[in-house]
């Protein structure tokens, strides 16, 4: 029995969907932030993708570990397919659940530290709103760990000054 769900691309929604055993359909997609990151660092060769995921229907929350596995597997696949991909995700506080979400993501990606992937976290506040940001990328990323890290921090600093 697989520990994750199978997802498929939905042309209409422009993202990926999967059904869970509780009957809730989940959706995840990627927003391309490459251009923004390259404005900060024109030498950056990586592509930067921000992942968002959520249930398609608002309903009862179910604690299903296969959901986490499905999302983390998708991220790993992206980076395996393109070692120069950087995947970003944000836990914002619009629903005051950012701390819980951030801890959950840390737990989800705990095993990443044992792989060849790098995870960097940064928290920031603006307009009384807390935002926990993270990026995941391969240690073999062509831009180098230090360069990616500096660009990520610079991006956060720049935006927090707006």
């Amino acid at each position, binding site marked *: 029995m697989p520990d994750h769900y199978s*997802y498929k*691309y939905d042309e209409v*929604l*422009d*993202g*990926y969907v999967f059904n869970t055993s509780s009957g809730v359909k989940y*959706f995840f*997609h*990627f*927003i*391309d*932030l490459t*251009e*923004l990151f390259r*404005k900060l660092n024109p030498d950056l060769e990586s*592509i930067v*993708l*921000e992942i*968002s995921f*959520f*249930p*398609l*229907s*608002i309903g009862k929350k179910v604690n299903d570990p296969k959901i986490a596995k499905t999302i983390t597997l*998708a991220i790993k*696949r*992206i980076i395996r*397919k*393109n070692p120069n*991909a950087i995947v970003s995700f*944000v836990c*914002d506080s*619009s629903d005051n659940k950012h701390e819980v979400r951030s801890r959950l993501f840390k737990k989800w990606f705990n095993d990443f530290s044992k792989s060849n992937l790098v995870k960097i976290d940064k928290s*920031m506040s*603006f*307009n009384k*709103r807390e*935002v926990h*940001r993270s990026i995941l990328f391969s240690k073999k990323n062509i831009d180098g760990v230090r360069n990616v890290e500096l660009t990520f921090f610079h991006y*956060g600093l720049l*935006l*927090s000054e*707006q």
Partner: protein
Amino acid sequence: MKKSHTSEIKSVKDIVEVKEYVKKQIQSGKPVDHSKMKGLKFARPL
């Protein structure tokens, strides 16, 4: 190729707003109006 206007993004607040808009549209079964994406585009990396 359509030119991206991500210069509309001025802060993290803009990105968060776009994401919240997209989430709201998708969860309510409504189409996403790309003119409200402030130049951001979706990617299909898988």
